[in-house]
């Protein structure tokens, strides 16, 4: 008996270490074969080969490369000088100024990761994240346009598009064509794979019929990635991705939504009334759409998290400048009261924590490590911090925060969407819990 225990011991010990130090667990192949798990957010699709980073000396998460720093500076300047003066007007008009879109293209912000040979900037994923954050400090509406275009649309074409699709569309997506990602429907949101839009094969290609809802960028976009089910009998394994151009017969925008926040970003209901598209507009392979959607949204989430940290920083800085320079009560700056200072300190600490999650998720993705849980945690927490800080910022500013001047109240309204799109907060929690359970359950 004793000998049996003895022989078992090393294994027992290993098991103990295993659970006691989960952080050291290597990102291995444990997720393979999980790609069909239902809730949209839970699977890791590892496209990039893991980079060996064991020899690289660790640096602070806030450390950026020379290129990323240069980009942050340039985008920050552009955002405050060019977009800044238009933020209030665009929000009140509930419309994106077309010159802003034009300038985003001129700055190269719409093709951050598109390689140079296709007319893009050829930068890395974290550079895109930096840009999204810098834009959101000034206007989260502009930021989400750039985010969806870069992290969902461009990445989809880059990764899954045929050579012809890439050749035809990447140069345009980098220079003059806004893209849109059409997944949600009246009956499917968090349960994305319940989508009802139908695709049928024709002699020359495909025919799409159905409708999409809450589609970001749809007014400005000319290029739509549409998810439709090619064979409902196969369930979600029939879901396929297609490219639809604006102006294709049968495609129409039914209604533009009026929203609480990010008002300058367009959100519409789209109709597909027997829209016929050529064979070449198939994105990737038939029946693989659900995998693409999962992988793209897993990454896209880091972008939304960056949008939310940018928003929180923008709201924070706006209020901090006011309470420490302008507003005096009882003979001193309101920012000098301890009750205010503790709130300010707490808020900045939360922003810094959220940013650490965001940049860590981005770096893990770049290193080819499993980042699904990190992305979910980053998005969940960043959107919570954004809501909290932008709400407090209004209170710090008092009357000046409550009026529809400046950006204080707008940032708070804009923060709400962070808990909703690209996976609601509950979906993020479900994803995180599911992965944790996998890690800790012994059965």
């Amino acid at each position: 008996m004793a000998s049996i225990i003895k022989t078992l011991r090393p294994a027992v010990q290993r098991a103990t270490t295993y659970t006691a130090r989960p952080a050291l667990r290597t990102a291995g192949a444990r997720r393979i074969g999980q790609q069909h798990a239902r809730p949209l957010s839970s699977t890791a699709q590892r496209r990039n080969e893991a980079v060996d980073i064991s020899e690289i000396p660790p640096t602070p998460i806030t450390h950026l490369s020379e290129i990323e720093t240069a980009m942050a500076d340039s985008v920050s300047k552009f955002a405050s000088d060019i977009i800044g003066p238009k933020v209030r007007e665009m929000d009140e008009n509930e419309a994106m100024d077309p010159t802003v879109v034009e300038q985003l293209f001129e700055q190269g912000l719409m093709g951050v990761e598109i390689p140079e040979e296709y007319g893009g900037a050829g930068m890395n994923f974290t550079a895109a994240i930096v840009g999204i954050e810098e834009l959101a400090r000034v206007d989260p509406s502009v930021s989400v346009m750039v985010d969806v275009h870069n992290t969902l649309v461009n990445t989809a074409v880059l990764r899954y598009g045929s050579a012809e699709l890439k050749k035809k569309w990447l140069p345009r997506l980098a220079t003059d064509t806004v893209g849109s990602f059409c997944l949600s429907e009246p009956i499917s949101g968090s349960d994305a794979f319940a989508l009802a839009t139908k695709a049928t094969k024709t002699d020359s290609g495909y025919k799409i019929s159905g409708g999409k809802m809450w589609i970001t960028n749809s007014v400005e976009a000319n290029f739509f990635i549409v998810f439709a089910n090619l064979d409902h009998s196969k369930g979600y394994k029939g879901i396929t991705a297609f490219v639809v151009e604006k102006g294709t017969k049968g495609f129409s925008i039914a209604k533009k939504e009026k929203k609480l926040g990010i008002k300058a970003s367009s959100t519409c209901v789209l109709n597909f009334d027997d829209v016929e598209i050529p064979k070449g507009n198939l994105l990737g392979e038939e029946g693989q759409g659900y995998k693409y959607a999962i992988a793209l949204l897993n990454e896209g989430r880091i972008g939304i998290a960056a949008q939310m940290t940018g928003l929180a920083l923008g709201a924070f800085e706006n209020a901090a400048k006011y309470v420490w320079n302008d507003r005096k009560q009882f003979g001193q700056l309101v920012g000098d009261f301890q009750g205010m200072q503790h709130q300010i300190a707490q808020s900045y600490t939360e922003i810094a924590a959220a940013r650490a999650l965001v940049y860590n998720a981005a770096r893990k993705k770049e290193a080819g490590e499993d980042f699904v849980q990190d992305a979910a945690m980053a998005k969940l927490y960043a959107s919570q911090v954004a809501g909290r800080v932008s709400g407090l910022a209004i209170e710090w500013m008092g009357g000046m925060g409550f009026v529809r001047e400046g950006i204080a109240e707008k940032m708070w309204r804009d923060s709400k969407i962070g808990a909703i799109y690209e996976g609601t907060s509950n979906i993020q929690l479900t994803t995180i819990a599911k992965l944790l359970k996998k890690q800790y359950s012994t059965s």
Partner: protein
Amino acid sequence: MSALRILVPVKRVIDYAASSSSIALISHSKRKQQSNTPCFTGQTPRQQSPNGRRNGGVKHSMNPFDELSIEESVRIREKKSYPHGVSDIIAFTCGPPKSADILRTAMAMGADRSIHVETKDGDEIEPLSVAKLLRAVVDKEKVDLVVLGKQSIDDDAGQTGQMLAGLLGWAQATQASKVSFEGDGKGVVVEKEVDGGSETTRSNLPMVVTADLRLNEPRYASLPNIMKAKKKKIEKITAEELGVDLGKRLKTLKVIEPPPRQGGGKVEDVDGMISKLKELGAI
């Protein structure tokens, strides 16, 4: 006539948007540690900026007047305003290792290559020394037009361009608000900002031009150009190699802050004003 070779000197300074309190902090601590320095460039105390990734110092960037001179040079090329075109735009800086950042910015905006004379962090180089370095670079690189910012926003000396023109024996047009070229490839017409209006001057190349605020609106470096700038060359060269002694000739005796402003008074009417002026001995 051949194509134009333009030299654009740039300087790394504390960002103009850096908050005044942080600047006060720097000039204060600087005065304590180095009483002979009249300005606040160079070493800065460690300070956390609102943006976590810029910690370790106050944000620095290119002197705004130098952005104008880079922009103007790139426009001369893009708009083909010089009849024989532009063959080379060289950005130059003399400063600490971190100054390489602004050379990258200059190249992302359109300069072709850069020259960096590296100094120690905290060293102050006087305008005459910089002008001598520039003269050496002009000779070495066969430059025929130097476009400088009219002054840097840290020490505000506003001397380098003029000294350089003097050393080279070239024509100079300072505080330019418009630069155009004549069809013969020699004549340069420059509108200058002067008190109460503008003055138009004409001279022949080679020449020194210093840029004023209204000259143009500098572009933002686009992302593809930031990537391209990474591949452009920065040539490092020492002052000795250029045969220039960077030793100081000036001695700062004292630095004081301007006295705080006294509050003004209001007068009721013209008579009140006259009697007030008499009281102050002004009339």
